[in-house]
């Protein structure tokens, strides 16, 4: 098989039709005549993190709270290392995007006075099973937005220091698309599958985090030389055992506490209840032989149990199936919990592109929103909507008066050759799956995975870097016999680039304040001077170059003055 090129042209190319990408497209369509292409790896109807649904909106300014209190919560949870300008501009828009998604058809629970019913200080209750079809239908209504499903974008087109489009191949026909655009918005989601998973065999994937988010957006940016931030702030989720279904629904829904095998509530022993501490405390209880750990649900009412069955069917059906299959629900059996493998995901923690306040990356013409944009943790669904809108407005402003760059034929031919080399010649010794397994084992053993209790040190990271580089070299010899296998190759290559950058960041942050998420055993002590900085990087000539940058305050307008 050999691919052939096909040229497409648009004003704004959005890579990834998920949470942030769909809202970016809607914003552009509602405010301009600009032509938009959404290039989607699967099908917008059920692609990305929201495929199965979502059971609450976790970022909303409820009555009595303000964007400022939201900012304070995010700042405290991340021990101060956040881009306040980014978090605040998101927080200001959370309620507007919520209203918008409700108008599009999302069911949100209201009380008798017509107010949203909150779950805690920042969450509201919804029925989000069909949130993705709602977004897909909304996007489809706009004639200026073209959705191309089943296209795997592999690299940006960079000319004269600007991003002027992207290359991607179809999963259905032997075509390499050369898409030229005046501006590109990257909304590809984060990176799963870097580390060995809890159940590394048949059930390696689960309903969190989307395994099809393979870090493509990060990897394309890394290869293009964009500045990245805070990869070292990994996200490790505390989840229901095996199914990796969310625990917040149980913890907040029925007020279940975390207990160890003796029934002791252990969380408070480990400090203030932050996201990383909830996780870390569970790791420590297990390490000291007090596991398994549970959410204490025994004694909840039959009605509460029934409501939990429904809530999980609306977002993580495996958990309900597990309860029913076991013949024991949460009312009679506490729910065992465990930590996942680490992910790089900017919607939860701070990893991603280093953007200015308008969400422009350090390369002209490229914008980022959602899980790929760094510096602003705890975005969740509504934060990704808001950030998609901000990036859309900025991209629209940027394309005014821009004359589209015609992509270089020669570069497109070169790209075509590099794709086709995977499709030619006899199969090699290894498959993409072999490389993936090797990568996950290296990261698990040497870069703070589950089996080492998430901690690492400099010597280990050196080993990890060497091995990841070897695997990257080997990966260029991989062969594919069909387009799906070709996608598997690109996915593992992208993950390897993300791993290399991640290792550079883990090494560079010589402090420890996010237990489990980032625990450098060489530097356990606190040191504010080292801590209150951003660890950023650029990939130059095959090397991760680290730069440290200052924190940015709430009302600052951050611009890239040295890009």
């Amino acid at each position, binding site marked *: 098989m050999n691919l052939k090129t096909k040229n497409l042209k648009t004003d704004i190319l959005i890579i990834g039709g998920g949470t942030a990408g769909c809202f970016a497209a809607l914003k552009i369509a509602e405010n301009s005549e600009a032509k938009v292409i959404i290039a989607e790896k699967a099908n917008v109807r059920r692609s990305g993190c929201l495929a199965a649904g979502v059971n609450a909106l976790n970022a909303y300014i409820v009555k009595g709270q303000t964007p400022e209190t939201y900012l304070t919560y995010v700042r405290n949870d991340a021990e101060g290392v956040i881009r306040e300008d980014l978090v605040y501009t998101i927080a200001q828009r959370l309620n507007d995007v919520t209203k918008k998604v409700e108008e599009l058809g999302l069911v949100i629970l209201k009380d008798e006075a017509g107010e949203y019913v909150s779950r805690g200080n920042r969450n509201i209750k919804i*029925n989000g099973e069909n949130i993705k079809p709602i977004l897909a239908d909304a996007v489809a209504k706009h004639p200026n937005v073209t959705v191309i499903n089943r296209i795997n974008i592999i690299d940006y087109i960079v000319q004269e220091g600007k991003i002027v489009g992207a290359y991607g191949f179809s999963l259905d026909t032997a075509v390499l698309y050369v898409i030229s655009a005046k501006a590109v918005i990257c909304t590809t989601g984060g990176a799963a599958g870097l580390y060995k998973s809890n159940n590394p065999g*048949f059930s390696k994937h689960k309903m969190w985090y989307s395994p*099809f988010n393979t870090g493509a957006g990060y990897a394309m940016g890394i290869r293009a030389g964009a500045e990245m931030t805070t990869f070292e702030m990994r996200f490790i989720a505390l989840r229901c055992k095996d199914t990796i279904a969310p625990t917040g629904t149980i913890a907040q829904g029925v007020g279940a506490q975390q207990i160890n095998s003796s029934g002791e509530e252990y969380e408070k022993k480990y400090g203030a209840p932050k996201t990383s501490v909830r996780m870390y405390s569970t790791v420590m209880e297990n390490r000291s032989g007090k596991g398994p750990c549970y959410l204490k649900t025994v004694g909840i009412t039959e009605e509460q149990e029934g409501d939990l069955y429904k809530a999980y069917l609306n977002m993580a059906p495996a958990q309900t199936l597990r309860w029913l*299959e076991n013949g024991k629900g949460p009312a009679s059996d506490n729910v065992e919990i465990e930590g996942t493998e680490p992910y790089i995901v900017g919607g939860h923690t701070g990893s991603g592109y280093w953007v200015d306040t308008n969400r422009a990356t350090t390369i002209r013409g490229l914008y980022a929103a959602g899980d790929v944009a760094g510096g602003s943790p705890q975005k969740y669904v509504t934060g990704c909507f808001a950030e998609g809108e901000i990036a859309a407005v900025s991209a629209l402003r940027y394309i005014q008066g821009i004359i589209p760059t015609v992509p270089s034929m020669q570069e497109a031919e070169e790209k075509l050759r590099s794709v086709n080399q995977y499709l030619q010649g006899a199969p090699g010794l290894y498959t993409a799956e072999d490389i993936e397994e090797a990568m996950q084992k290296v990261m698990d053993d040497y870069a703070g995975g589950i089996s080492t209790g998430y901690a690492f040190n400099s010597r280990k990271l050196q080993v990890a870097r060497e091995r990841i580089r070897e695997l990257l070299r080997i990966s260029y010899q991989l062969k594919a016999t069909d387009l799906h296998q070709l996608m598997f190759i690109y996915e593992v290559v992208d993950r390897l680039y993300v791993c290399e950058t991640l290792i550079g960041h883990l090494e560079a942050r010589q402090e420890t304040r996010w237990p489990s998420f980032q625990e450098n055993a060489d530097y356990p002590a606190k040191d504010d001077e080292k801590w209150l900085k951003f660890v950023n990087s650029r990939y130059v000539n095959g090397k991760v170059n680290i730069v440290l940058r200052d924190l940015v305050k709430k009302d600052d307008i951050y611009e890239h003055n040295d890009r």
Partner: protein
Amino acid sequence: MSIMIDSQKCVGCGKCRQVCPGSLLYVDSRGKTEMKYPKECWGCTSCVKECNFNAIKYYLGADMGGKGSFLYTKQEGQLLHWIIVAPDGSEKQITIDKSQANAY
């Protein structure tokens, strides 16, 4: 977690193939849909909900405690019925009204 497609029930309409977020479903030589990469499935049930012929069974892998039960869904206007079938054939049904928000 993964799915198994009952080729007796599958009519090859392709609705499930279109929506799979991992593009894991392909058409086989008989025009039916097959799960080509069962280990790559993350259990989102998007395909299950698209199928009007109850041909797709969603189950938990044995490595995560699966015991042979499976589930499928039936759409009825605003109602989504989830049917869980035990290995002995007995069924349990949970119905969700899509116009109602979650209690939690």
